[in-house]
């Protein structure tokens, strides 16, 4: 029942908020919905919920971690987003409202909640085709969010996002059909049933199916050769949306791959899949490293950093063993830290009105010192400095790689990480240090330093550090449970 509520509440209020005229009320609905979502998530914790619809919607051990991350991120994003909307609303007042059925902000709020609902659907789906439906729906719900600013560039990004992801996900649909053929045409597509019957599955078809699923959901997840939409969408979307795309959506797409992986493990294809994971994981890190080095746009830089982290997580899953746990920890840390960083980037953008790295200097020195400090802290956390969860995750992955004697992988991993670190250091240091050139208007400063817009990244960073330092038992258990579902025995 809780599961159904988790999906339907944002769905219902998402549709409703298209029609709410009052800005204040609409913003209230967003926050209330996200809060309710988190509350329900906490309530569902540890309970076996058998859901409705014949077990189509159930949170199992693997997906629960994803649910927590998504829920926390959405609450933070809604708090940040509400403040952001109230700041931005001034820009849209003059636009002629006659031609539009819904105001820009209503579309944003509605799609925001629909995005939450579809994402929860993805996480909860035990039915593979339904999972596909959910992933495609997340694309559609988030496309209007990217186009929020109504500029040419954001339109271009939206179009690329829409088309590349739709085509990519179509590949995944073919993969699901292949899976059904591999499964001897049994129309039963429930994950548990497929895994149960995995011993009699047709191996060549399953291999092809996994490849298609990997390419399909990998496109959505932003793995290296298929990542082309990701930097554009992340840099052109409003920062709060970028945070959600990066922190929550990419993980959800990854869940799609992991479902296929679970079936492959049951069918005894683990090592076949692991090779794919490792190759594409390393490739993603490498791509990201190359593109971060010469980056001129700080939001694109964050986007490439997301590709890098997706690569790390994929690599961790591919290495198997303890690295799966590390990958889960890294995913948790990445979502929190990256969302926080995008929030800070949004503040910086509100103040400086530019995304070019070379135009920004001395954030820490001027009026924006709070954002400057946060920017620097976020940088240290995302590159994996010790108190961060990401350090923990990367360290475990590295240890596993060494234990397995995969020295080539280890060396590649370390070198690319070093390159990423160097590239990001250059960018962050040059932005934070130096003297702030000119003073901006008071209203810009007020926006950029607004309470919730500073608090949410602080909370996320504190969480990332806190988890890294204390690593609470309940969280360890949840991550362990997820890792066990993914072949950590």
């Amino acid at each position, binding site marked *: 029942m809780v599961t159904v509520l988790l999906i339907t509440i944002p769905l219902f209020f998402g549709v409703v908020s298209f029609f709410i005229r009052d800005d204040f009320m609409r913003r209230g609905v967003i926050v209330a919905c996200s809060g309710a979502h988190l509350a329900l998530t906490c309530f569902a914790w540890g309970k076996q919920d058998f859901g409705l619809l014949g077990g189509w919607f159930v949170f199992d051990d693997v997906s629960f971690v994803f649910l927590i991350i998504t829920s926390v991120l959405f609450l933070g994003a809604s708090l940040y987003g509400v403040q952001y909307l109230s700041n931005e609303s001034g820009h849209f007042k003059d636009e002629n409202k006659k031609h539009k059925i819904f105001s820009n902000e209503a579309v944003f709020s509605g799609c925001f909640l629909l995005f939450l609902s579809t994402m929860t659907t993805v996480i909860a789906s035990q039915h593979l085709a339904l999972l596909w*439906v959910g992933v495609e729906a997340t694309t559609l719900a988030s496309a209007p969010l990217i186009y929020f600013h109504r500029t040419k560039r954001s*339109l271009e990004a939206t179009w690329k996002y829409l088309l590349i992801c739709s085509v990519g996900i*179509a590949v995944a649909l073919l993969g699901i*059909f292949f899976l059904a053929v591999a499964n001897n045409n049994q129309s039963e597509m429930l994950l548990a049933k497929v895994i149960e019957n995995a011993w009699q599955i047709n191996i060549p*078809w399953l291999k092809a199916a996994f490849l298609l699923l990997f390419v399909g959901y990998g496109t959505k997840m932003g793995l290296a050769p298929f990542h082309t939409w990701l930097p554009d969408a992340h840099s052109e979307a409003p920062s709060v949306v970028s945070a959600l795309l990066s922190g929550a959506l990419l993980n959800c797409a990854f869940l799609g791959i992991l479902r296929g992986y679970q079936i492959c493990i049951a069918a005894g294809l683990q090592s076949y899949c692991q090779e794919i994971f490792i190759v594409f994981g390393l490739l993603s890190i490498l791509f990201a490293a190359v593109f971060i080095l010469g980056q001129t746009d700080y939001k694109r830089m964050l986007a490439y950093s997301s590709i890098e982290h997706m690569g790390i997580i994929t690599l961790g899953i591919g290495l198997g063993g303890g690295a799966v746990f590390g990958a889960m920890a890294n995913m948790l840390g990445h979502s929190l830290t990256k969302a926080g960083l995008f929030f800070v980037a949004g503040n910086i953008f509100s103040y400086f009105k530019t995304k070019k790295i070379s135009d920004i200097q001395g954030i820490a020195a001027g009026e924006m010192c709070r954002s400057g400090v946060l920017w620097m802290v976020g940088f240290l956390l995302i590159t994996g400095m010790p108190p961060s969860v990401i350090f923990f995750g990367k360290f475990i992955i590295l240890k596993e790689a060494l234990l397995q004697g995969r020295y080539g992988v280890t060396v590649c991993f370390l070198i690319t990480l070093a390159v990423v670190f160097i590239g990001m250091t250059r960018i962050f240091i040059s932005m934070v240090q130096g003297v702030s050139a000119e003073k901006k208007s008071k209203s810009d400063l007020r926006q950029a330093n607004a309470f919730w817009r500073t608090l949410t990244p602080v909370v996320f960073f504190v969480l990332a550090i806190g988890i890294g330092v204390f690593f609470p038992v309940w969280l360890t258990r949840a991550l362990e449970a997820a890792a066990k579902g993914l072949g950590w025995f």
Partner: protein
Amino acid sequence: MEMPIDFVIVTVLLMNLMMLSSSRIRTCIQIAAVQGILVGFMPVIIDIHSILPGIIIISFFSIILKGMIFPGLLFRALREANIRKEVEPLGGYPLSLLMGVLMFALSFWLTSRLEYAQPLISYLAAPVSFATFFTGALIIVSRMKAITQVIGYLVLENGIFLFGAVFLGAQSFLVELAILLDIFVAVFVMGIAIFHISREFDHIDTHKLSELKDLITKK
């Protein structure tokens, strides 16, 4: 019983080739629509002796969607966005036609390497559905307009639907409806995006959508 299915499937294949060689967007939309209708009939044709109500409903919805609603949406976008009527492929029509044939050969080879657990309804089904899938991808890659990319997406979906219809028969009814709904919304959103693109850029030539680039790719 085998013949009509084979004929429908080969017609689907020929439509791919027609689409690749036709120069007008209008014709392309019509071909995609007819192809969609043919593919939509597949679930019914395949198992004509035992037709379940679920199959008929799925078939009905997909025919309505692919044969009427999608072309309607695209024609509307074509009208409102004031698009030039030519397709403008990269590399010319003959080349893309030959590519289409090549893709069919490729998919024939690919599918001949897979083994099937059950006897097949038609030996052509798998290669043609793959070829349709590849043709869609080719159209997306090689055609310069946003609207032709959407047409390519539809062709791609037709290929997947054909595969599903031939190999899987009746899946879970609700799920298939949900998939159709998803595709519908996708095309709808893309239609809106095309409208916005034509308004912002004064054309829907996606090659002009190239502001967002990384330095390294520029060099």
